[in-house]
């Protein structure tokens, strides 16, 4: 009865085209790359400007400079008094903010599409005309210290993650916290920011991403009008700081009385798309997508293996996750994360997660599992189109690390091409114990 009703009820569904949205790119003479994606559902636009600079560009003793500079970018410029910038955006109903990661620094506005020219005017101004004022910097350093206290120092989880990254990476700059070590924030000078600003805030080191109710030809004209006169400049080549090969398992216990619930984190060093055909020979593109499918096999939803076998099934974990960063600028991590159930030790949870890996190393995933994962990827790709901001994020985050943003249109096909045997192959290749860093987060050190 019920089934019949349902099949009747879908007769009037409108099937619309599932073609990917239209995206275009052009480059100004000064090297500024502009990526435009049209979306005419509502009269709004997202404008993001991505700079190739972030925590992983920094050197020891000067961590946190990229992030501090991001804060100062909301202050005075040659033609705008402090606060005027934000006031203008707010008065036009805009939202603005910025974020700094290990790989990039991004500024954005969201507002009526007719304001896109004003976004360009403001961003062009602060790309070259920032005025770094000592008194404002002194005040902003206080704000940044509060931000670090709030987000890191008073959060046992965040503090442990910071410690764990510094133990996982030995020479890769991913060992550094983006907000900066507390001591580096203390000794930071305005001159450090000035050097950073002069070096990295140039049109040829930036990517402008525009998604929304706009016409690409108009965006091209406006970007020329506002950014066209900014001079190109030499951006010094970043020194390579490759991670030294890890030669054995690393293990640590992080004790903190505030860590009330024990937690396990295991980091494995794996390649991403930026390593294919570049830093390490012998890595094929399919391996990256097979690692994505591996992550989904273990933790792609409530029917994936961790939820089914560790959280339900054997009832070993209260929570268990697997995540993989495939599009970072440098080689990154495949991470397992879990909380044991009452009465289960972290050792048992570690053994159970490794047992899941061992199973995949012995036996490839089933066709059914792969079919479910592939359907999920097709659906997610369509759901994502609902948010202009995520569309812009995908384009910008690929382009800023030197990847071709067209990869986003190939993602579904790449995942669909992965076979069970390929998942088994990467499970075997990348999850040897001697590539792992295993951390136990506990409330007290064992006696």
């Amino acid at each position, binding site marked *: 009865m019920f089934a019949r009703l349902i099949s009747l009820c879908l007769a009037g569904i409108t*099937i619309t085209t599932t073609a990917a949205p239209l995206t275009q790119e052009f480059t100004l003479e000064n090297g500024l790359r502009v990526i435009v994606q049209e979306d005419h559902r509502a009269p709004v636009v997202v404008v993001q400007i991505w700079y190739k600079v972030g925590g992983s560009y920094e050197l020891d003793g000067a961590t946190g400079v990229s992030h501090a500079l991001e804060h100062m970018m909301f202050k005075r410029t040659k033609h705008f008094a402090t606060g005027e910038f934000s006031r203008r955006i707010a008065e036009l109903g805009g939202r603005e903010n910025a974020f700094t990661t290990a790989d990039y620094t991004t500024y954005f506005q969201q507002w*009526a599409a007719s304001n896109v020219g004003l976004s360009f005017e403001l961003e062009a101004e602060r790309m070259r005309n920032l005025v770094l004022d000592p008194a404002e910097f002194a*005040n902003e350093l206080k*704000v940044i210290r509060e931000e670090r206290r709030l987000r890191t*120092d008073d959060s046992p989880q965040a503090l442990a993650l910071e410690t764990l990254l510094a133990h996982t990476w030995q020479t890769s700059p991913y060992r550094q916290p983006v907000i900066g070590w507390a001591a580096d924030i203390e000794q930071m000078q305005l001159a450090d920011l000035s050097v950073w600003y002069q070096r990295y805030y140039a049109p040829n080191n930036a990517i402008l991403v525009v998604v929304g109710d706009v016409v690409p030809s108009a965006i091209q004209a406006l970007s020329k009008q506002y950014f066209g006169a900014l001079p190109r400049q030499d951006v010094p080549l970043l020194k390579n700081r490759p991670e030294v090969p890890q030669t054995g398992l690393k293990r640590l216990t992080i004790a903190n009385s505030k860590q009330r619930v024990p937690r396990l984190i295991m980091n494995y060093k794996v390649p991403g798309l930026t390593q294919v055909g570049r830093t390490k020979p012998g890595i094929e593109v399919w391996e990256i997508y097979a690692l994505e499918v591996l992550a989904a096999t273990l933790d792609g939803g409530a029917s994936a293996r961790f939820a089914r076998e560790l959280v339900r099934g054997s009832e070993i974990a209260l929570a268990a996750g697997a995540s993989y960063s495939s599009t970072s600028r440098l080689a990154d991590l495949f991470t397992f994360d879990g909380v044991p159930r009452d009465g289960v030790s972290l050792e048992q949870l570690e053994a159970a997660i490794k047992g899941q890996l061992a199973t995949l190393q012995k036996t490839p995933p089933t066709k059914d599992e792969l079919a479910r994962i592939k359907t999920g990827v097709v659906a997610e790709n369509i759901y994502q189109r609902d948010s202009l901001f995520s569309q812009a994020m995908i384009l910008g985050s690929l382009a800023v690390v030197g990847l071709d943003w067209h990869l986003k249109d190939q993602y579904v096909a790449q995942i669909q091409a992965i076979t069970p045997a390929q998942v088994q192959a990467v499970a075997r290749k990348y999850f040897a114990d001697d590539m792992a860093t295993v951390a136990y987060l506990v409330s007290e050190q064992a006696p």
Partner: protein
Amino acid sequence: MNKVLCTALVGWCLWPILAWSAPRIERWETANGVPVLFVAAPEIPMLKVRLVFAAGSAYDGAAPGLASLTNGLLGEGTRTLTADEFHRQMEATGAQFGGGALRDMAWVSLRTLTDPVYAEPALKLACAALTQPRFAAEDFARVRQQMRAGLLQEKSSPGALGDKAMLHAIYGKHPYANPSGGTETSVAAFTPAAAAAFYQRYYVSNNALLVMVGALTREAATRIADTLVAKLPRGAHAPAVPPVVVPAAGQSVHIDLPGEQSHLLLAQPGITRSDPDYFPLVVGNHVLGGNGPVSLLFQEIRERRGLSYSVDSHFEPLAAAGPFVISLQTEARREREAQQVMHETLAAFLAEGPSEAALLAAKHNLIGGFPLRIDNNNKLTEYLTVIGFYRLPLDYLEAYPRAVEAVTVAQIRDAFQRRVRPDHMAQITVGPHIAPP
């Protein structure tokens, strides 16, 4: 030169926003009387469905956390499918099934592709999860233990501790004082039978609202709506949340927690969704602490003194008076300074109200930014939920800019002076103990 350009822009930039017609909301009732709010969004072949019930933590009764527990168990299997089978079948369709519980409401939601190959089984499963939940002992035990772990970890979280203490201080015995994640005692006493009873009482058609946004014709939406709720028992609408009595005197509460920062909250019961002072208070608050970097609190606390990374004030309008909260976090040794600036900023605002210029700026931000709140299917679903659940007029999206536009400085000053009473506000601090000077 920049000034000239921008003044000119203000004129022509606001115009297209105001001229943009809000999405057309269709409202009807299913065969068994469940109100449906629907917006056709043909551009992306997806559908978002949300079934909303008056079943939030306000209805926990003597068992704080029961609303969350019950909601968390929906989707953990059906009468004929174990949790494993349910999730396997649901995820094979690419659909995303979820739920949630707030103070007034709780919901289950489904996001699916509209292609019938996926949508048909997904809707059928969602319907079974809603109308024939399993409430198995092992699923209950797991969800309860997850809640306990959450409560345990919250003991180290100044933000969570502060929010709980704030609700307790301003609501006393009112159900909004219930911590939605429960207490150690209440969670320990939960039983599957209690969750089942809560479900039977509140997840009924007379207590339901259905929200749908997606690439459907009205006809298809009508049929899906009827099918989804056909098997819900009729039941009765939940009783109204009792009115809130504003405490006669504000409490001062300190929670000792070793750490670097003190979290400061200043709070009192605020407004209901249908409050006659709704617009003066919400627009006024936008000037005080709701408009990000241009608001008064941000300027005084962060921009002038570097006292906090984040500072904000907000009203949470609910069925009964929801909280009005000002909050910040500062280095422990600067706690008193931050507290003083927070009080002074509020006092000055209460005495004088906003300047004409600040009010105009706030109006421009609220009106000009309104399309950003409804520019995709997910956000529209949220708004339709609020409109349907709190019985706001269907032209709310169009009426909103006009209502904001009409607010005056005098109305704001008057409403704030009547409704925000510093001596009635609870003051919460969470952080390391500081010796008196």
